[in-house]
Every structure is written in C-alpha cells, then in structure tokens.
C-alpha cells in the first residue's frame, strides 16, 4: 500500500520566448487567412527536441515521487524551473509532455493576496481570498478570528483594503493562506514578506503544518528557511532534477553550484552580473597588517551603464560591519559598454582585521537606483599572527576605523 501522494512522470514544459507576437488579433488571423488560406489547415512543423531559438524547455523529463507527510524543499537557481513545476502540480498550467498524479486536497501559495480586491473590506477579502484558495465558507467562518488575530489587523478589519498599508495587506494575505489546511501544500517563496517578527510567525505556522503530518513542497531561495522547515530536498537545475536527497545535502550541492558560493543576491536588476572574486585563492591566508586587494569580476548586460558607483562593506563572521568603503568618497564613477566583462579592484591598506573569516558585500548603484547588491561573498580569511611565539595572543585587539582604500576599474 503505497503512501505516495505526488508522482510525476517525465514532466516537460516548453515555453515560447523571444520575439513572439504578443497577442493575436482576430483581424490579423483573418487577414492571414485571406492571403494564404491553405496555411490555416497546414499541420504544424514537428519541433526539434532541444527547442529552437524560439522555445525553451522550462522543465525537461522531470520524474519524482513524494510520500505522505514529506516536507520537501525545492531549490535551484533562478530559471531552474521551480515555479513552473509548482504550477504544473497545482494544475495551473498543463505540461507539454508527461503527467503528474496528485492524491489529496491541494492548497497552493504562489503569491500572497491572491484575489484581494481593494474596494472590499478586510473582512470581505478574507472570505474572498479564502474561498479562492479553496476553503469552504464554514471553514473560513470558523477560523476567521484566528486569521485576523494572526494578521494583527483587528481594528481595521472593516475598512476597505485599499486603505491598508502594504505591510498590513501582506500580513492579512498571509494570515489567510497560513490557515489553509490542505493535505498537500505547495508554497512558492512567499515567506519573504513582512518584518522579521512576522516572518518568524509564518515560519512557525508552516512548521506546525509540517508537524501535523501534511505534505509540503516548499520553494525558496532562503536556504535557512528551507533547512528549518524541510527534511528532504530536490535540486533543480536548468529544468532537470539534479539531486533528490536529504535537505542539507541538497543545499550543499546547490551552494557548490554557485560561482560565489553562499552569496546572496539581494538586488539584481539584470543589468549587471557579478561573477566572483577572481583572486580569491590569494586571499585564503592573509595577515592582519597585509594590504588587501579584491579583484571582483562583473559582466554588464544588454545595455551600457553610466555613472556607476560602487560601495563595499567587509563583514566578520558575526556579520558585523568592519570596513565600509564608498566609491563616492573617492569620487569614483565608472561607465561600461554593453556585454562587457570587467574587473573592479578594491584595495584596502592594512586594515588590521582581527583573525577570522570575512565576507564582502557589494552594492552597485547609479545614484538613483540600486543595480546590484550581493552580500555574503566569501572574501578572505585572516590568520592570527603569533606574538611572542603565542598564536592568537592579540586576537580581537586589532582594528582600524578608516583604512585607506582605493577602487579602480579594469576592462577585461
């Protein structure tokens, strides 16, 4: 007697990309039919298996089984196919080939606030959103007070939603979603809402749902969240399942994939890509009084960039700020043409860092908006210098408030 609740068999999903005519107009179809009537009835050409320039395979041949009560974390880079997989399992979109078999009532959280309407009051929206997510009216009535209390919006529950702050809307939306009690729950990165307090509450609620023995599929970029809630994991890469194992192993594989392991993309407008510290190997063992040089590789996107300023921050392993350097202080601005690989060289004179591991945060902006913000970049390891033959004697004593620094750009 199997307790498999989800079985996927060779799921594939092809999307059309690129220069596709956005929406067809009936008049275009009629015009085309007039000029080439035979074409209306012609069979479509068979598609090449790897997709041509106009197609991508968001999922290719994905098969897996999920058991009752399993809490699975689905991780992968952007574009790996995680959301597509959830959409197929949730029956929002049909797979191009293959099928998925789901046993049991399913609830999906792909977005917070699905169905919310600004003109209706909070109370009305709770009912509407709850119904759309799949709760019955009786169920919503039963849980109503709990939902409102969880969202902390009791005073405003009868005000139209458009008067709520974004935070309140999100809290209410999440409160409704959190009280969904399906047998299978699909969650897509929706825990990234609200302040830290609220996030903790949401995680807690999600954890409770897991403890009740329900099956959860949890897509997240936040590896800490994933490891906190999930027991097993699935790693997706370019539309394929690359690893299906216990969550910490999957997380490890995922980090090993990234060019800058462990680094967090906080802001990424797609105009600039960070490709790693090219001289990281030399920074493996530095002494506290060494001059530090970080060579960071970037590549610009499809548009040239102008008036770029870059800020660096060095953090120790307690995530405390140690050195902060803004290119504005040096009056350093740079421009790059499109699709150009370049390096930014950040030198810090003798910062006298205490021994330990350090991470770098890079923040690139053009004076108006943030273009790229990556933190937790594995930067360097500072070794203790033995004093009077005793290593670690003066650990933690070294510090420097404003080391001299310089930033310059080098085109590859």
């Amino acid at each position: 007697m199997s307790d498999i609740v989800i079985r996927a068999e060779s799921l594939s999903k092809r999307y059309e990309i690129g220069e596709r005519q956005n929406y067809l107009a009936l008049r275009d179809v009629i015009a085309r039919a007039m000029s080439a009537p035979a074409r209306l009835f012609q069979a479509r050409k068979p598609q090449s298996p790897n997709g041509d320039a106009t197609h991508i395979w968001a999922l290719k041949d994905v098969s897996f089984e999920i058991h009752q009560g399993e809490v699975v974390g689905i991780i992968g880079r952007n574009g790996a196919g995680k959301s597509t997989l959830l959409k197929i399992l949730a029956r929002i979109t049909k797979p191009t080939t293959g099928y998925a078999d789901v046993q049991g009532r399913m609830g999906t959280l792909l977005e917070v606030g699905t169905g919310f309407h600004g003109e209706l009051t909070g109370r009305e929206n709770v009912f509407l959103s709850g119904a759309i997510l799949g709760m019955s009216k009786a169920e919503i009535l039963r849980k109503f007070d709990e939902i409102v209390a969880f969202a902390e919006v009791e005073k405003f529950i009868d005000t139209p939603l458009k008067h709520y702050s974004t935070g309140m809307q999100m809290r209410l939306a999440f409160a409704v979603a959190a009280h969904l009690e399906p047998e299978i729950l699909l969650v897509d990165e929706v825990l990234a809402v609200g302040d830290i307090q609220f996030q903790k509450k949401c995680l807690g609620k999600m954890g409770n749902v897991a403890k009740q023995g329900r099956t959860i599929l949890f897509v997240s970029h936040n590896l800490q969240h994933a490891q906190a809630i999930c027991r097993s994991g699935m790693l997706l890469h370019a539309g394929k399942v690359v690893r299906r194992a216990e969550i910490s192993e999957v997380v490890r594989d995922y980090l090993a994939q990234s060019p800058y392991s462990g680094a967090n993309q906080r802001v990424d407008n797609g105009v600039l890509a960070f490709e790693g510290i090219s001289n990281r190997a030399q920074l493996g063992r530095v002494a506290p009084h060494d001059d530090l040089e970080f060579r960071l590789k970037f590549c610009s996107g499809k548009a040239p960039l102008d008036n770029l300023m870059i800020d660096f921050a060095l953090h120790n392993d307690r995530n405390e700020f140690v050195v902060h350097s803004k290119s504005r202080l040096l009056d350093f601005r740079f421009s790059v043409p499109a699709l150009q690989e370049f390096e930014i060289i950040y030198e810090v004179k003798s910062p006298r860092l205490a021994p330990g591991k350090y991470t770098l945060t890079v923040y690139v902006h053009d004076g108006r908006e943030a273009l790229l913000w990556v933190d937790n970049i594995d930067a360097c390891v500072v070794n203790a210098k033995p004093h009077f033959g005793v290593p670690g004697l003066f650990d933690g004593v070294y510090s420097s408030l404003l080391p001299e620094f310089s930033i310059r750009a080098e085109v590859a």
Partner: protein
Amino acid sequence: MNLREVWAARELLYFFVWRDIKVRYKQTAIGAAWAVIQPFMTMVVFSLFFGKLAKMDSHGLPYPIFYYSALLPWMYFSGALQQATSVVVDQQHVITKVYFPRLVLPLAAVTSGLLDFAISFLVFVGMMAWFRIKPGPALLLFPFFLLLAVLTALGVGLWLSSLNAIYRDVRYVVPFLVQFWMFASPVAYPSSLVPEHWRWLYGLNPMAGVIEGFRWSLTGNGQPPTLLLAASSAAVLLLVIGGMFFFQRMEGTIADVV
C-alpha cells in the same frame, strides 16, 4: 468534462458573484438606478419613434410594455455577454496563481447580471400594474424562458470568453456584435414581421425564442411561439455544449497566454 468539479466549486461561484455585485455597487452614485435607467430610457425612445411615430405593429400591446418586455432579457443578455467575454482575461492575476475550475468564471459572469435583471423586473411589474395588464397562465412558463436567456448568455459567453483569451481584440468587437444582434432579434419589432417560411431560420437566433417567450409569458398576449422556441432551444443547446468543449480546450493553456 468535469462538471462534478464545477459543482464542488459552487461556493466559489457564489463568492465571485458576490464580489462582482459588491464591487459594482460600492463606489457608484447611480448604482442600482443604472439597472433601471438603461432599459427604461431605451423603451421611451423606442415607444416614441418606433411606436408613436412609425406606428409599428405591437400586437395590441401598449408600446412601452411591448418594448420593455423585450428589453428586459435583452439588457441582461448584452451585459452578461460583455462580462463573460472579458472575465477570463480580467481575472488573469487569479488564474495564474490558483487552480479552480475555470468554468466558474463565465458562470459567475452570467449569474451576476441577474441582480440587475431582478431590479429592472420590478419596474416592469410596476408598468404592468400601470397599464392594467394581467398575465395569463402562461406566466408559469416564465422561469423556463429566463433559464433559456441565461443559457444563451452562457453559451455565447463561453465562445467569446475563450476567443478573447486568445485574440485580445474580441472584447472590442462585442459591443458592435450586440448592436447588430439586437436588430436581428424581435426587440423593436414583432417576429411576425418575418415571413412564415423563414421563421424557423429566424428562430435559430436564440434570443428570438427568448424574447418572444418573455413577451408571451409575461403579458399573456398572442400565441405561444412554439416554432421559434424549438429552433432557439436547439441553437442554445449546441452553443452551450460546443462552448463548454471549446472553453475546456482553451483552459489548459490559458495560464500561459493570459
């Protein structure tokens, strides 16, 4: 064809209808009055120009009654059609995030129009009292004609809804379509205008059966429009069944193209 699923989602259908109605009336000054003003003013204009001045045939009924009894289902139909056509595209933000039987959307669209219908119906009752017209036993068949009207709106709506999801300009064609359709239906004139041997063809327009049915059952005037009704019912059946199949075919890929 998963009608069981649709039945299971009937509460959601209720919520969608409830939302449409609430939102429509929340911030309007005229609100419910609009449900009455439209058919009423049209009736006034028709009575004046087609009735009093052109002296068109009204089978002995006072002109206002003759026109309003037809405008009643017509206004419902035209409104429901507009709603149904655009509902899937308008609700794209929900469709791409949650699964529910998509059929609920056009169903909700044709259902929410019934409130406005009910309001303008009350006005009709008032008019009947004013003109001292008592309906006959045919009134018992009125619910059937109302159902036929709803099914017509649903049938056509399903086709238009699916088409609009694929070809975005369909919703702009609908007002024109409705205008044209009105003159092809016995709203401003009785169907007796159409020569006997063509009447079955005329009856393939489902609204012909609906309107003549409304007139007959509400006013007790004239003969039951059986031939027309037979043709109309057959047409509606085909429209609804065909529409459901077409809609279901479109359903699978709707989240990708919407």
